[in-house]
């Protein structure tokens, strides 16, 4: 039943006349304890979706179902993934971390040794450099927030400062870059600028309290808060200090932004300021006019989110959303705004501004600046069109 709105005052409807049922679970003891819990079976549609390269095991990406979540933390079972050769089943006792190259002494660490180091915790987002790539398409893809923007997640990561280990190895002043390499079958590797990661880089051992999940780098991964997901090398086995970048496949063939003139922007480290409305969004049909909360996520690899504005008219007018505390640097920030849907068409957008003053671009601006010859680092405004029947679709405003 629809609520009757009369001059601003809404009178509640009356529930159907039956007595409230005393359901079986109110009378019969429930399930016993288990060592490690799981979500309700009724929530089994709250799941990652994934795309895999033909004929391979787990070369591809999986996406977080943000339209079904709330808060800033992504539960570990739903953290997005990007694997290049499946999820290795690493025996932690056999795993080693090597630091070598331009250092005074090359060092090797066992996991037990790393576990004794001073730890630091950091709530941080990780976003794939390819997240949002569908916005580069000419026509709006008919998909929802999970497919559009699901390759970003946020967790509390705990680990050892990379700087502490490098200091023990003794960094040669000639070293300006490091190569980080994974123990997966793809040997995922990226070059990272030493000066820019010294402050923040963590060798992460824990993810939301427990050991890092296999899909996210068990037993250790690199965490570079705010930097392109691919740089946060999982299953980290080796750090080599070098003078220049190694020019690995993923920093040349991939993760560069090819501009209209054919040149490609390389070493795009920070994921620039961005936001997306997660509710309402495609798949979440609004059954009746009335109150809805507009909520979503904002983040910036440059720092803290300073402001998120929301438009319900495709960008003509904007109003600031409330930011859910705590607002943390390089973490997902939940924004919220009360909205009363009048039953007419609406065009919903969010626009983030971070604390260095960077403003999330419109899609027009992003494409005017960069063209559509790339798939990477799409941080433009995503637009949801609401139709009169309450359906929500991805549109270009």
């Amino acid at each position: 039943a629809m609520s009757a709105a009369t001059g601003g005052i809404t009178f509640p409807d009356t529930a159907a006349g039956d007595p409230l049922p005393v359901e079986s679970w109110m009378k019969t003891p429930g399930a016993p304890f288990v060592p490690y819990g799981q979500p309700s079976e009724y929530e089994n549609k709250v799941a990652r979706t994934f795309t895999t390269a033909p004929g391979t095991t787990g070369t591809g990406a999986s996406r977080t179902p943000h339209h079904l979540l709330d808060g800033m933390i992504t539960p570990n079972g739903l953290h997005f993934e990007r694997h290049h050769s499946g999820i290795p089943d690493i025996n932690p006792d056999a795993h080693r971390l090597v630091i070598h190259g331009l250092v005074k002494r090359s060092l090797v660490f066992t996991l037990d040794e790393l576990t004794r180091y001073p730890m630091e915790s950091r709530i941080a987002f990780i976003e794939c450099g390819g997240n949002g790539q569908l916005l580069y398409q000419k026509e709006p893809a008919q998909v929802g927030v999970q497919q559009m923007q699901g390759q970003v997640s946020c967790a509390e990561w705990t680990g050892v400062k990379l700087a502490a280990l490098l200091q023990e190895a003794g960094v040669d002043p000639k070293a300006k870059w490091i190569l980080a390499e994974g123990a997966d079958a793809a040997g995922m590797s990226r070059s990272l600028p030493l000066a820019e990661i010294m402050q923040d880089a963590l060798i992460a051992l824990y993810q939301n309290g427990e050991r890092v999940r296999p899909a996210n780098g068990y037993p250790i991964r690199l965490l570079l808060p705010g930097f392109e997901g691919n740089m946060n090398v999982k299953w980290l086995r080796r750090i080599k200090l070098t003078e220049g970048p190694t020019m690995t496949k993923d920093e040349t063939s991939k993760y560069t932004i090819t501009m209209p003139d054919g040149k490609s922007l390389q070493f795009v480290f920070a994921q620039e300021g961005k936001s997306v409305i997660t509710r309402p969004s495609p798949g979440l049909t609004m059954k009746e006019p009335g109150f809805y909360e507009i909520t979503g996520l904002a983040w910036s690899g440059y720092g803290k989110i300073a402001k998120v504005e929301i438009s319900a008219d495709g960008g003509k007018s904007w109003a600031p959303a409330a930011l859910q505390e705590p607002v943390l640097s390089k973490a997902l920030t939940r924004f919220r705004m009360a909205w009363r849907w009048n039953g007419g068409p609406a065009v919903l957008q969010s626009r983030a501004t971070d604390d260095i003053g960077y403003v999330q671009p419109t899609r027009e601006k992003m494409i005017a600046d960069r063209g559509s010859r790339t798939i990477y680092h799409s941080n433009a405004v995503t637009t949801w069109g609401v139709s009169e029947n309450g359906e929500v679709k991805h549109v270009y405003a």
Partner: protein
Amino acid sequence: DSPNLGKVITPEQVASWDISISPDGAGLPPGSGTPKQGEAVYASKCLACHGEKGAGKPNDALVGGIGSLVGDKPAMKTVGSFWPYATTIFDYVRRAMPYNESKTLTNDELYAVAAYILQLNGIIGENETMNAQTLPRVRMPNRDGFVTFVPAKPK
């Protein structure tokens, strides 16, 4: 007062893991290979996934697209059209290919298959040999195609 719990390790011990190659060729092992030798490696270990002569299907094409980075049609980015350094072929194929049994090719096989991919792309001739000296000297068509990104500055 750092924990100092790591153990010192020698280059010999790290050698089995030290598989990365710099664009200047540092890290390239001894050995060599020609396009013709590479064709044989490719046929037995790569073709099933990357197609006849690197044309692609079911997985990435390794050939083609030179000149496609500008213009109206979609860019076709391959080893030939896009990769700035030939050393990356050696580095990447050694660490990640063949997909189902990576890190199993010999150095000669690696030089040979790199030579074959380069030759298919018309970047080297049929009779050139790839080794630690020649591979880094190969000039890739898109070598000058990259510009370092400049991040936003605080306003």
